[in-house]
């Protein structure tokens, strides 16, 4: 090389390295910013949501008096079921706070415990009939206001009119606290109960089962349809055919259609035309299938395209038919990519709310769905519903449900990574 040329290159070298360093710096700062956003989001959700995994319980000395229950010495199972448990709870509370006078205060006293206390007592008595006419020390769910207070959500220093708990109620709570009758425990019912208007009773089991059933329908429909479409378009369809091109363009466009449009389509076609029931996992799954199909088709086609053509030639030259070539060699080689695409599509569907609002899955449903034709809701819609509720205690439940949903998404993405590793083949 000419000495002069070397000089010229040397002169520019420092500049070139500086450029490289600058570019690296941009990249690192971009990553830092996104990590900062992600962390602040996660921390915010965790701080708000974590308290929901604990729930305040209240201890009451219950006098299970058969007279209060209006039970005779002989009673049938039905009479036991219908007995007046609410009176027992009321009287037991009164006995603990003898000084309470007036309708307003009496009502406030009742509202220390959750309404579910009546049913809890009923179930307890039915399971153990021998407790009738005895005194039992039982733990019941506390009302949401007490729960919020216990978690530091109510400020004593505020004027009484701005507080959910009035002064006299605070006295009761303090008394209960000094007698160790208020306790925070792990909130099992958040995972075992369905939605409820009472925050302390509301759980996500119904939404989780609904999500699971909806995902099942989506998976069973979109995976076979999507993958076979991709295989046909990539391996068998004639190239440079205007119909194939048209289909391809349409699939690519569908991937960019706002998801709520799929909800409208589902409402018009599946519900309006075919009469599929509303608010059920079946219709949710159908609509989410429409939404997921383009993702699955596009990623599967990319995976199939990435299989080296030499593998196809090798199989064809050995006398394999095109179907054999495709299913013996090409599809197995593309499987990791296909599965990754499918799981990403599923994860997208799991977090989708908008199209489900259109097909009635936004209804308040306080029942666990038993099958794909039972009314149900799904996790993201449950989050949406709770975020809309005025009760303070729903705030933490909203964040807790988001944490559960994020947990599911992380598990699914983790699965995608494992599957890719497992099916990956070295060329």
């Amino acid at each position, binding site marked *: 090389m000419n000495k002069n040329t070397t000089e010229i290159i040397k002169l520019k070298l420092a500049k070139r390295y500086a450029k490289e360093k600058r570019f690296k710096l941009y990249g690192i700062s971009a990553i830092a910013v996104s990590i900062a956003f992600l962390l602040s989001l996660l921390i915010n959700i965790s701080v708000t949501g974590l308290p929901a995994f604990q729930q305040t319980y209240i201890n009451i000395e219950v006098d299970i008096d058969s007279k209060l229950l209006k039970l005779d010495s002989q009673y049938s199972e039905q009479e036991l079921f219908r007995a007046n448990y609410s009176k027992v709870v009321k009287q037991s509370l009164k006995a603990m706070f003898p000084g309470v006078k007036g309708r307003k205060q009496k009502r406030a006293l009742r509202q220390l415990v959750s309404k579910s206390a009546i049913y809890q007592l009923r179930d307890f008595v039915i399971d153990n009939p021998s407790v009738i006419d005895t005194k039992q020390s039982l733990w019941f769910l506390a009302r949401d206001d007490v729960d919020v207070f216990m978690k530091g959500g109510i400020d004593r220093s505020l004027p009484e009119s701005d507080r959910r708990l009035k002064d006299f109620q605070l006295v009761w709570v303090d008394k209960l606290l000094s007698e160790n009758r208020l306790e925070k425990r792990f909130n099992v019912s958040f995972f075992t109960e369905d939605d409820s208007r009472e925050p302390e009773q509301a759980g996500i089991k119904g939404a989780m089962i609904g999500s699971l059933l909806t995902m099942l329908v989506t998976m069973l429909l979109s995976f076979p349809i999507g993958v076979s479409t991709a295989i046909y378009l990539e391996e068998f369809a004639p190239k*440079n055919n205007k119909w194939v091109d048209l289909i391809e363009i349409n699939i690519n466009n569908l991937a960019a259609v706002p998801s709520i449009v799929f909800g409208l389509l589902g409402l018009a076609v599946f519900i309006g035309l075919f009469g599929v029931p509303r608010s059920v996992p079946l219709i949710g799954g159908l609509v989410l299938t429409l939404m997921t199909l383009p993702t699955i088709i596009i990623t599967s086609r990319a995976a199939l395209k990435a299989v080296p053509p*030499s593998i196809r*030639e*090798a*199989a064809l030259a*050995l*006398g394999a038919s095109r179907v054999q070539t495709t299913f013996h060699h090409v599809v197995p*080689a593309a499987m990791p990519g296909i599965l990754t695409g499918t799981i990403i599509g599923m994860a997208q569907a799991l977090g989708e709310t908008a199209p489900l609002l259109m097909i009635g899955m936004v209804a308040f449903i306080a029942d666990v769905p038993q099958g794909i034709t039972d009314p149900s809701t799904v996790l993201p819609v449950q989050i949406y519903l709770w975020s809309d509720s005025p009760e303070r205690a729903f705030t933490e439940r909203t964040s807790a449900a988001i944490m559960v949903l994020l947990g599911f998404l992380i598990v699914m993405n983790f699965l995608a990574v494992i599957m890719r590793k497992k099916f990956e*083949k*070295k060329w």
Partner: protein
Amino acid sequence: MIDIEKREEFDIEIDKTVGKPFIDDAKFSTRNVDVFYDDKQAIFDANIDIGKNQIIAMIGPSGCGKSTFLRCLNRMNDTIQGCHISGDIKLDNEDIYHKHQDPVLLRARVGMVFQKPNPFPKSIYDNVAYGAKLHGLASNKIELDELVEKSLIRAGLFKEVKDSLHKPGTGLSGGQQQRLCIARTIAIDPEVILMDEPTSALDPIATAVIEELMIDLSKKYTIAIVTHSMQQAARVSQRTAYFHMGHLVEVNDTNTVFTNPEHQLTENYITGRFG
């Protein structure tokens, strides 16, 4: 330096294939074969016989159509969009492009080894057993084991891999992979083996092993090989065909082609004046 514009081969007429394109006892015979990729003609009027249990080498500069011609012989060109072929190609006097001819059956009779070794991402055993399983050539596991072993022995690979039959075929060296591909091809016992530059991706030692193997295999199989190496053509083949810009210029005994070429273009090529 050669001035491209003045390269003399552009002025030389290619009229008719010279030499001895036709022989008795032909395995393959092609007459008036034209091949088009969409509108572009890749092969012009190829007439040639390929003899039984012989090796025929096809040589010529890049893009001259020799690979295209080879791929016509087992209808691998069918898979290429826009490729169409006219003329007669007969294998044992049967038209292989006849509408009743099944390409799957044809490819079982006419095997192919490619330029770049392309073992399936499966075990060595499964690579060799695949074709046999596909065509149902072995009725049980023992027969299949025997067939795999026999094919690997014939391909000269058995000694090297007998302890690792269930390891991936893609883990072998380039030369071993190519021999694995040959073993895979002969496992279905074809009548003809087409080889498209089988050693161009290999080092000289692996090339020598494969060339020996070809000579050995030619006792049983008819072999057509496309090669860029004239030495290779001279070493292994009985007959040589020279292609130039889609035209089949000259076909003759290998000795004659390399010592006394009839056509000016052939001479230019083998003396290294272009190509």
